Every structure is written in C-alpha cells, then in structure tokens.
C-alpha cells in the first residue's frame, strides 16, 4: 500500500499560482456576470479585464525571483516574471482596442473577454514552468482560446485563418509531444532542470547524438511554428489578414514572447550542453526567416499583411539572438519585444482605426496601401504618427525598435557573430523599403479619400492608446536604460 502523503501548504508555495488564478477567476467572473445580466455593454468587460490584468500584473510583480512551487512544477525565475509582465502588459494595452466606435462581432461576446483572460492564464502557465506537461497544457489552453478569438471575428477570412492556424497548431502539437517523448526516453524526465542534469551525463554516449539532435529538431519545429520561423511561418500572413487588427497585433507579440521563453528554456539547455548543431540550425533558420520574410513583404499590397511578414522577419531577428545563448542575447529578446510591442500596438491600432466593414479600396484587402495615400494632407497628425511607427519598425533611431535592434546586434557582435550582425543590418535595409512604401503612400501621394474613411473607427480610447504608443515609441531612449537593467538583472538572476 502506498503511504499517505503529507504535504504542507507552505511547501506548495501557492503564491506562485496566484497570478494565473487571478486571471482565471477574472474570466469566471465575467462569465458569471454574463449569466446574471446579458445586456451589459462591452466597455464594462473591457474595463473588468483591464482591472483583472492590473491585479494580475501586481501579483506577478510581487513574486520573488527563483522560486519553485507546487511540487516544483511552477518555476518563477526571472524570465518567467518578465515574460508574464510583458504578456499581461501587452494584453492590457491591446484589450482597450475593443472600444471602437463601431460594433464588431467578437466584442459582443462577454465570452470573448473570458477567453482572453483564460488565454493569458495559459500563457502564464506556459512561461512559469519548466515541466513540459504544464508547458504543453498551458500552450494548448492559450492556443485554443486564440483560435477561437480569431474565429470570433466572424467573417470568412477569419474562419479560414482560424482553421489554418488550428490545423497547423495541431500538427505542431504532434511534433512537440513527439519531441517530449524522445526527451523522456532519453532522460526519464520531462522537467527541464532534471533533463539537463541527465543529458549532461549522457551527452557523450555513443550513438545517442541522433536522438538528442532529433529531440531538439522535433521541439524546434513546434516552437518554430509558434515563433514563425521559416518554413513554419506560412500561417502568419493569412492569420493576421483574417484576424482583426488588434488581435493580429497582439499575436505578433504576446504569444511569441511566451514561445520565446519556452525556447530559451529548451534550446538554452541544448546549447548549454554544447550541442552546437542546435545553434547553427537556429541561426540558419533565423537568417532565412528574416531574409525571406523581408523579401516577401516587399511585394505585399496590404499593410496588415506586410506587417505580418515584417513580424515574421522580426521574429527571425530575435530568434538569432536566442541562438547566441548569452545573457545579453536573452535580454535582447525581451528588450526587443518590449520595444516592438509599443510600436506594433500603435501600428495595428492605426489600422484598426481605419478599418471599415466594407472593403472600399480593394476586393480582398482591408488595408491596402492606397487607402493611406495622401494621408498627410487629410490627417497630418495621423500620418506623422503612423510614419513614426513605420520608421520605428524600420529601425530608424531614436524610435523604440531601433534600441532593440542595436541591442540585438551588439549582442551578436559580442558573441562573435559579426556576420550575423551584418546580415541583420542588411535585412533592416531591405525591410526599410516596405515600411517606406507606406510612408511614401501617406506622404508623397495625393489623397484619394477623405479623412472620414480613414478615421472610421476612431474613438477616444483608441486615441489614448495611440497617444500612449506614440509616446512610448518616441520616448524610448528615456526608458531603455531602466528596462535593460531590469531585464538584464532578471535574466542573469535566473541563470540564462
């Protein structure tokens, strides 16, 4: 017979669960509220969501670094804290985009907000663990919510997007589980710290390399899909096009942060073991990704789709930093995404503001370049702001993304990968073209529309968001230092 198990409540360290629980409970509250009164306006839910996330944010801030909890399933180290903060922060910034002046389908569902919170909880679980099971379940929770949120936009394209994302996600899940199985077979464990320990003893065993490589590849496929590395990126443009602009912007940042955290944990482990093969595979994939996505973005006719490719390219950029496996490299991942987030938030919000229910300018696209032509004459401020976002994305100083780029490149140089830094530089140059294209349309062409059509969706809260994003993009230089030192501290504290 088994002996009874005594577990003290303190040893569980339940506080590590608190942030996720807050999100989950918040989601449940919303569901209950809807049950009680189904006539409530979306603004209530938006604000509730923000409030819940606010508490969540506070709870994460209150966590101590490097703690484990709940039978060591939960892992609260530096990167889990900063990634949770970024996930929550990003979510807080994107959810007010629901407050458009026009009604959109998904926001008429209170469940949308519940799912949104569940998704955040999923991401939080995913990043706050080194147990492959919890990572998998958290990932799937978040993904399933995300698929639904995409589909809730409720038009043909969004179904198509959801199906594509879903199907490929299922395939990726298959690879992830297979990879986990190999790891499990190799080490008898699926907890990464344990896996690392065992692998370190086994890494030199003859004939085993194929399994180690194989496991890394299988996991890489799964995360390359999430992060959107070539050739697993194909879903991105379609999903972004099909999804609503806020969600597309959201997807370009938040899920990727979560995926990157797990990647740091997994591939960092391989790199620490001295499996150089993984490094080169990632580097090569990253380089192909950023180049190819850039090239494909050149020929896009739709701004949102262009931004989708651009986000693939940015992801490749950051993935390369991951392969460096230095503290700076890992810091740069978060720094980049933090800075990228503000800019992307702004850019997608601008798209959202200009979104029409009818496709006025093109049979297919919501945001063809033509829509923005001559914007500077009809809405100079909007054009300037959008221009700033584009320049920021192109990596023109002093806007936010530049600081991320330079930090990544510096990390590459410091790690001895000067060629990588040069490729990054050249890619930025290619990328500049398609960002410029929008600027060219906005500033250098004559208007074909009046201000009304572009500011169709404008509402006060969207303006606030835009203002915030602009300030954060322009004023990046003033907060980069604290951001870097905080990130660097947190990451080095957790040993990455």
């Amino acid at each position, binding site marked *: 017979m088994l002996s009874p198990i005594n577990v003290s409540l303190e040893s569980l360290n339940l506080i590590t669960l608190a942030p996720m629980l807050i999100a989950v409970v918040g989601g449940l509250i919303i569901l209950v509220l809807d049950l009680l009164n189904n006539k409530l306006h979306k603004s209530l839910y938006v604000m509730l969501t923000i409030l819940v996330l606010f508490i969540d944010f506070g709870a994460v801030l209150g966590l101590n670094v490097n703690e484990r909890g709940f039978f060591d399933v939960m892992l609260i180290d530096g990167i889990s804290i900063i990634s949770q903060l970024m996930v929550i922060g990003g979510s807080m910034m994107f959810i007010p985009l629901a407050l458009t002046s026009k009604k959109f389908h998904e926001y008429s569902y209170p469940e949308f907000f519940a799912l949104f919170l569940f998704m955040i909880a999923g991401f939080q679980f995913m990043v706050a663990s080194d147990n492959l099971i919890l990572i998998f379940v958290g990932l799937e929770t978040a993904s399933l919510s995300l698929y639904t949120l995409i589909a809730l936009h409720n038009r043909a394209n969004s179904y198509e997007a959801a199906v594509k994302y879903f199907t490929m996600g299922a395939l990726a899940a298959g690879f992830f589980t297979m990879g986990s199985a190999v790891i499990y077979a190799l080490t008898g464990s699926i907890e990464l710290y344990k896996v690392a320990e065992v692998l370190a003893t086994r890494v030199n065993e003859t004939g085993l390399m194929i399994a180690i490589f194989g496991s890394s590849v299988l996991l890489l496929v799964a995360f390359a899909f999430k992060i959107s590395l070539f050739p697993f990126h194909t879903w991105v443009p379609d999903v972004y096009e099909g999804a609503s602009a806020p969600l597309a912007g959201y997807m370009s940042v938040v899920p990727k942060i979560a995926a990157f955290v797990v990647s740091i944990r997994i591939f960092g482990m391989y790199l620490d073991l001295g499996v150089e093969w993984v490094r080169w595979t990632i580097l090569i994939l990253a380089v192909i990704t950023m180049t190819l996505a850039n090239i494909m973005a050149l020929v896009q006719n739709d701004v949102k789709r262009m931004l989708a490719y651009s986000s693939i390219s940015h992801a490749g950029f950051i993935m390369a930093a991951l392969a460096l496996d230095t503290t700076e490299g890992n810091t740069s991942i978060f720094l980049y995404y933090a800075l990228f987030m503000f800019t992307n938030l702004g850019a997608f919000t601008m798209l959202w503001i200009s979104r029409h229910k009818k496709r006025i300018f093109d049979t297919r696209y919501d945001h063809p370049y033509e829509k923005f032509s001559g914007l500077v004459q009809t809405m100079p401020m909007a054009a300037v702001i959008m221009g700033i976002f584009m320049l920021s994305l192109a990596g023109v100083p002093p806007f936010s993304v530049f600081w991320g780029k330079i930090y990544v*490149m510096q990390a590459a*140089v410091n790690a001895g990968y*000067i060629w990588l*830094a040069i490729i990054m*530089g050249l890619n930025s140059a290619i990328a500049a*073209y398609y960002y410029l294209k929008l600027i060219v349309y906005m500033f250098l062409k004559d208007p074909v529309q009046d201000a009304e059509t572009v500011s169709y969706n404008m509402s006060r809260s969207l303006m606030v968001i835009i203002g915030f994003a602009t300030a954060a993009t322009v004023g990046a230089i*003033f907060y980069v*230092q604290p951001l870097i030192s905080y990130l660097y501290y947190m990451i080095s504290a957790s040993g990455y």
Partner: protein
Amino acid sequence: MENILSILVFFPAVAGLLGFVIDKDSAKAYGVTVAAIEFLLSLWLWFSFDTASAGMQFVEMIPLIPDMGISYYVGADGISLFIIIMTTLMTLIGMASMGETKNIKNMIVTLLFLEMTMIGVFVALDAIIFYLFWELSLVPMLYIIGAWGGPLRVYASIKFFLYTFTGSLIMLVGMLFVAYIYHSLTGVWSFAITDWYALVLPVDYQLWLFAAFFIGFAIKVPMFPFHTWIPYAHGQAPTIGSVILAAVLLKMGTYGFVRFSLPMFPDASVMAITPVAVLSLIMIVYTAMIAYAQKDIKQVIAYSSVSHMGIIMLGLFAMNAEGLSGSVFQMLSHGIVSGALFMLVGMIYERRHTKLMSEFGGLASVMPKFAVIFGVMLMASVGLPLTIGFVGEFLVLLGFYQVSPIITIIAGTSIILGAVYMLRVMKFTFFGPLNNEENKKLKDLNRRETWSLIPLVAIVIWLGVYPKPVLEPIDNSVKALLNFMDEKALTKEAKDMIRVAKSSKEVK
C-alpha cells in the same frame, strides 16, 4: 551658456513642433525667423569659441543608457564649428529664398527637423547619437524629395533613403564592434568617440572597421561607385532639397571620415590612401565628364558636386595638415557654392519650369543680375583664386602632392574639367542669342531672391580673400588630429606617411 550646442540642436526641433500650430500663411515667416535665430545662435557659438584651442569645446555629457555606454555627448571643435555655422546659414538662406508654395507649412516643419538632425550629426561625440541623427536626417529629406520633387520623385527619394540606410547599417555594425572591443579591453561600455580614440587597434581590425565605416560614409559622400543615387536625388528634389543635400548632407560623409575613420584607424587610413585616392580620381574625372554630357543644368551641378566631393576625399587622405585643412575648408566652400548654384537653378526653374539647357540661351540679357551671381558662383565652383572655392581646392591639391604627384596632377584636371562643364552651362544658358520667345519675358531676380543670394556672394568673396578666421581654427584642430594620429599609428609606414606640421621647420 555652456550648453549652447544642445540649444542649437533642439531649438529647431522644438520650433518645428510648435510650427504645427502656426497658420499656413505665416509659416514661412516663422521658419525664416527660427532659422535666423538659429543662425545667430551658431554665430554666438563661434563668438564664444576659443579659436586657439584645438580640443572639443562646449562639451556636454548626459548618460542615457549607461548599460550600453550610450550617452548624450556633444561637443564641437574647429572642424565641426564651421560646418555647423554653414548648416544654419544654408538652412536660413535656403528657406528664405524658397519659392515653394505647396504645403508650405509641412515644408517648414520638415526643414526645421532636418536642421536639428544635421546639427546633431556635427556635434555628436557619441557614436550612437551620431548614428541617431545621421539616420534621422534621412527622413525629412525623404519627405522633401518625395513630396515636392519632380516626376520621378518617389523613386529618387526611396533610392536615396535605402542606399544611405544600407550603408549606415554596415557602419552601425562597425560601431558596435568598436564598442565591443572597447568593452573587452576596458570592461566598460562606451560609445563616446573620445573614449574610442584611446583605443589602439591591431591593424587587421583597423582595416575591417575602416571598411565598415567606409561603406557608410562613402555612400553618403557619395563616392564612386556609390554615387548613383545623387543624380536622381538632385534631379528630382525641389530646390531647397538640393541645396541642403549638397550643402550639408553630403558633408556628413566626409565629416564622418574626419571624426571616425582617421583618428580611430590611422594605420588603415594610411593603407587606404591609394584605393581612396583612386576612387576619388574616378569621382573627379569621371563625374566631371558625365557632368559635361548632361542636358539638364541641375544635373550638371549634381554631378559637379560629386566631382568636388572627390577633391574633398582626396584631401582627407593627404595625411598632412595642408590637405586636411583644405579638405575641411573645401567642405564649407562646396556647401556654399553648390548650395547657391542649386538655388540659382531653382530660381530659373520656377520661372520656366524647365532645367534643360536647350530651352535657354542668352539669358544674360534679360536676367543680368542672375547671370552675374551665377557667374560668381561658377567661378567659385571652378576654383578661381580670391573666391572661396580656390582656397580649399588649392590646399587639397597642395597637400596631396606630397603623397603622390601623379595622382595630384590627374586630380588637378578638375580645374580644367570643372571649367569645361561649367562654362558650357554658362554658354548655353546665358550666352548666345535670345531665341526662345518664352525667355524674352523672363523677369530678373526679385528682391527676395537677390537678398538671399547676396550674403552667399559676400561669403564666397570674403572667405576667398580672407579665409583666416575660418581656416585657423580648422587648422588647429586638424594639426591636433594629425599629431594624435601620428602618435597612435602602429606601423612605421603610417607614421612616415602622416606628416605632422611643425611650427619650426628645419630648412634644407
């Protein structure tokens, strides 16, 4: 006012921001006033500048990102001082003479931002701040070319942007690598140029880094074979765009060589003398010939600009005070002269909406003032003594003669070829019979145009006759630079090549 440099940098930017609320009709007056104040400020800078000292003055340093070693670090020495003044001057005059009326407010705001970035480049002592302003300067220029330019303006502006952007990204990698070396040697992150100067790099590192910086600067200069963006940029840009582009933006490249390449990589610079000289020769001769083949007046001046930049490049690599001072002086002179020439072309373009030489002829009879000022600028452009153009060109050739007589002689053909294409312009535009009916009713320069050109004429002559007030501070800084390079150089060849001026020279 120890922080005058910051004021200089940010005053136009703040003014630009406020400019958004200015009424459209008053925008130009506002812009001119701001530019005038800025110009006065820059004069004040000169006034309070200690011309006897060769080092950096008005230094300000505010750490921005200490973890990366990035700080707001500015200062000016004799080399940058006058480029700053030229920048403010050309902005003021360009703006005052501007005949543009379309979207004038946007233009003014853009110009003010552009002014900020230009001054920023010349005062920056932190590589990243330098890079920041460097890149940022592309944006207003892109807008100016693209929004007010000719039929191919979009192509031209994008080409301009992407080309320079690509080059500068390579340069950025170089900067990052220098910072990395600095860090690995000292354990401290720093992008301060003055800190970097202390680095003694092995020769092979120097060569690679030199190459990285070279690409960035060479595209901006623009050196052959990276020059092809400039005919488009000039050809399509509105007058004010060409003026600023030629007068100031191109100088950023050559200034970069002075600020970065020479002091940081003395050995590599010495090794690069021959390749750079050959490229410069190609620039000088080849583009001068291309200029001769042009049909469009503005294109002639655009290509001539490249040709003159070749002279400047040559001087930079003369490795002696004569050549280097001459080169810096030539930057100023080219700025003023080519700026004025572009303005002149712009004035004729406004009247006739064409820049083709074949459309003109005999203009001297209907527009005598115009012809006179054009003639003065032409003569300055071909380097007539007692005009500003001679001093620099002469010193450069003099300086480089010590390095290579043959190259100097070939480069010296610029005084011939320059005359060839410029006189051709003069002949086909101003001389000959006044055949074209449309030209017969052309009005001579109006008051605005005349008075915006007269200061330039005055400067052209003043600095041609008495360049000392400008040349002396430049020379001081250049001598200090050469001394520094000589001390820092590792190889004997480099030490031999770098010729430090001695105040008491032994007579053979």
